[in-house]
């Protein structure tokens, strides 16, 4: 795949949040301020890029064969969790103003499934390590876009008069469904334009 099509595929047509439905724990309580939303999503972009880089090398050259490949899940989960913990510590240490508000309920573990999903998906394709890392970065950009969209829409929704039964999570999901409709439409139109 070309560089352009990897970015389009992983950031838009295969968006980690709206198409793959991963990483919903942070999406349900998105940061209120746009600045902290961008900051914490950038931390996730960083973790995604680093962990896809490591997992591409480890998964393609070290953990191969019938026995060793069964250690993949364990290695990747521990690696991703370690990266997330380390990033959270570093952010807390160097930018105390920007708290990682993505992981309010279970610190660091909450963005875990988005990062791990990216790692497994980039390993499923026949990528070179460089392409895989690019895929991880693009997927992180998709996550950043999703956090921005959800946090700004939630900010406006708080002012609206939503029916009581739909307040909170239900209206967030209906919003996400409508956004995802846009992403699904992008798939057909854009890909046929590029490759057709």
């Amino acid at each position, binding site marked *: 795949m070309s560089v352009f099509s990897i970015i389009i595929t992983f950031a838009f047509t295969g968006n980690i949040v709206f198409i793959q439905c*991963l990483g919903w724990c942070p999406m349900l309580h998105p940061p209120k301020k746009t600045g902290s939303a961008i900051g914490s999503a950038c931390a996730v972009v960083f973790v995604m890029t680093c962990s896809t880089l490591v997992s591409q090398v480890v998964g393609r050259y070290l953990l191969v064969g019938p026995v060793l490949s069964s250690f993949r899940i*364990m290695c990747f989960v*521990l690696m991703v969790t370690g990266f997330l913990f380390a990033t959270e510590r570093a952010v807390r240490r160097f930018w105390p103003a920007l708290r990682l508000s993505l992981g309010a309920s*279970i610190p660091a*573990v909450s963005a875990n499934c988005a990062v*791990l999903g990216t790692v497994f998906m980039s390993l499923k394709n026949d990528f070179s390590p460089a392409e895989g890392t690019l895929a991880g970065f693009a997927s992180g950009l998709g996550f950043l876009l999703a956090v921005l969209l959800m946090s700004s829409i939630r900010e406006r929704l708080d002012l609206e008069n939503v029916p009581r039964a739909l307040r909170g999570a*239900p209206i967030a999901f209906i919003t*996400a*469904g409508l956004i995802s409709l846009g992403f699904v439409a992008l798939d057909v139109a854009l890909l046929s334009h590029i490759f057709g």
Partner: protein
Amino acid sequence: MLQDFSRGLFTRNPVFVVLIGLCPALAVTVQFVNAVVLGACVTGALLCMGLSVSLLRNFIPANLRIPAVLIMLTALTTATDQLLKATAPVLSSRLGIYVPLIAVNCLILGRAGTFAFTHAPGRTVADALGMGGGFTLALGLIAFFRELIGSGTITFFPASGYGLIALPGLADSPAAVIAGPVGAFLTVGLLMGLFNVVRAVGNRRKAARRTSDDEGEGKTEGEAEGRTGP
């Protein structure tokens, strides 16, 4: 102990009320059978994790809880993945990355990290069965509506030809968008809203037999809402 079990099924349902374990609830509910199999995998993992954590809770130091739980759960997930690959390769490929992702399932990590560390094995098993049952019920309900509206069928077995009910009117011209991620979000959102309505009515009434009655009402209402929604 009975309360530990029944709590997870309705009043503290993990998907609709506590809002954890949502990623698989959104992603794999394209077909009824996928949802039930993943629900069973998660229930099994919850049960094993709850039992082992609860038995080992006095031997694991407090600061090593998260690593210990993660390592146990990844080992268990690897075993589940291999088992599914060996016995049901079709289902395994259809569930794809969502089987390895059981290793970071918020529901299992949450229950193993909090409830199992503070309760005896008996109560933990009851809690795991209730939470797993509630999770499977929720996934089954979501998948039922999504498959019914999105492809006009209900699949009970993965093998083709058997256990597949095709509805005459719907199967010819299904609303295919519901089978995609759009339908996942809309169905979960509307069912969650419906669940809130049912809970509010149930709270107001406070009748002893509220659960069975309202679930029956809920299904027909949900279908109507799901159809008019998109």
